[in-house]
C-alpha cells in the first residue's frame, strides 16, 4: 500500500466517545477502543495523504519525535485488519 493515499475503509467509522474518553473505531457489530496515538494516525487517513504524508504530518505536530517506524507498523496492522483502503 506504499504510495497510495489512505482512508478508513467503508463500513468503518472513527469517532470520539465521551463516555469512554477515547476514540473508537466502529464497524458492523463491533468496536475497538483506540489509544491516542492510534487515533492520531487514523484521523489522518482521510484520503488526502499516503503513508509518508501521514508520518510527515505527525512529525510536524510532534516535533523531535521519531515516529516513522511506529506509524508504518501501525498502518500495516490496521491494513491487515481491514480498517484501511487506498483512496
Amino acid at each position: 500500500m506504499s504510495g497510495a493515499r489512505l482512508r478508513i475503509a467503508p463500513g468503518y467509522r472513527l469517532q470520539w466517545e465521551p463516555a469512554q474518553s477515547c476514540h473508537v473505531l466502529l464497524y458492523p457489530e463491533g468496536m475497538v477502543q483506540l489509544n491516542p496515538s492510534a487515533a492520531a494516525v487514523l484521523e489522518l487517513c482521510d484520503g488526502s495523504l499516503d503513508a509518508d504524508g501521514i508520518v510527515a504530518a505527525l512529525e510536524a505536530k510532534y516535533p523531535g519525535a521519531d515516529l516513522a517506524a511506529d506509524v508504518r507498523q501501525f498502518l500495516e496492522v490496521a491494513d491487515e485488519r481491514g480498517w484501511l483502503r487506498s483512496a
Partner: protein
Amino acid sequence: MSAAGYVPPEVPSRPLWLLAELTYACPLQCPYCSNPLDYTAVREELDTETWKRVLREARAMGAAQLGLSGGEPATRTDLEEIVAEARRLGYYTNLITSGLGLDAARIERLHAAGLDHIQVSFQASTEELNNHLAGTDAFRHKLEIARAVKAAGYPMVLCFVLHRDNTDSMDAILTLAAQLGADYVELATTQYYGWAWVNRDRLLPTREQLVRAEAVAHRWQADMKGRMKIYYVVPDYFEDRPKACMNGWGKVFLTVAPDGTALPCHSARELPGLSFPNVRDHSVEWIWKDSPGFNRFRGYGWMKEPCRSCDEKEKDFGGCRCQAFLLTGAPENADPVCSKSPEHGRVLSAIEQAAATPSERPLVFRNPRSVRRLHGEA
C-alpha cells in the same frame, strides 16, 4: 473479601451495545425464533418518541452499537425516523432483517437516513426448504434484497441459522452466498431458547452432521480467503465449556423489547423470579445501574459451585443463565454445557434424545396458532 452476598463488580460497566427489538410482528414463522412463546400477548409497542428517548439515554451512558431487530424491524413504518435519530446521536446502526418489508427504494431511504449496516437472514439455500422453514414464500424476495443491499453500497452480509434440517446443505448454502457475491456469511447456530427450545429435539443436529459441516466450512473458508468471510461456530451443546454469554450479565449488553421491557439478554424474560424494568417507567440509567434485574447476576457473588471457585469464571462468567435455567431448573447453576457442571449429563442426553427423534416429526412454527396451542396445552 466479602464472605457472602452480592459484591458489586469492580469494572465500570456500560451498555455499549443496545439491541432495540422494535416489534414482534414478523411475516415469517421460523421454528427457531428466539422471540417469547407468548409474543402475541405483547400488544403495545413503544412509540417513536419513546424509542428516541431510549436511544438518547442509552447513548448518554455510552451505547455506541445499535442493533435494530425484532420480529421484523421493517414492519415498523417509522424505521427510517428511528435510524435517522440514532445516526444523529452517533450510533453505529445495524439492521437485522429477514428482508421482508424492504425493497430497493426503502433501502435507499434507510441509507440516506444514515443506516450503517444491514444483515439479511436466510433460512436455507433452496426455495423449497427456505420457504418451508420460513413458513412463507420469501426466498426470491430475499435474493432480491441481498442484491439491493449490495447495490446500495453496503457489504452483503448474510446470516443462515443452522440446525438439523439445513446443516447438511452447508455446501449449497455457501455456493448460493458466493453466487450472490456475499462479503460476509454468518453460519449461526440455533440457540435453544424460545421457539427453538420447543423444537429442540427436531432441530439439534447430530455429531456426525457437525463433523461434516465443519469440514465443509473450513474448506470454503480457505477457498474464499480474502473474498468472502465465513463465520462458523460449533453449537455450544457440543462443546465442554459454555459461551461467555453476553460478555457477562449487565456488563455491555442492553436489550429493549417491543413493549419497553429492558433485559440483560433477549431471552432473560423466561427466567423465573426476576422482574425486569420497563423503559416507560424508568430511565435507562436507573435500569442499568440500580434495577434488581440487571444486578441479579452481575459480577461473581451470585455463583454457586463449581463456578464459584473455578479459575475460568472470568472467561465465561459461568455461561448462560437462561440455559442454566432451562436445562437444570435453576438460573444460578453453572451452564450445564460445562463439563465441570454436575448436570452436564443433561446436555448429553438432550443430544441423544434429539438423535432419536425422527425427522418426520413436525416442527412447531412460530405463529399465533402455535401460541394458542402451546398455552392451551399447559
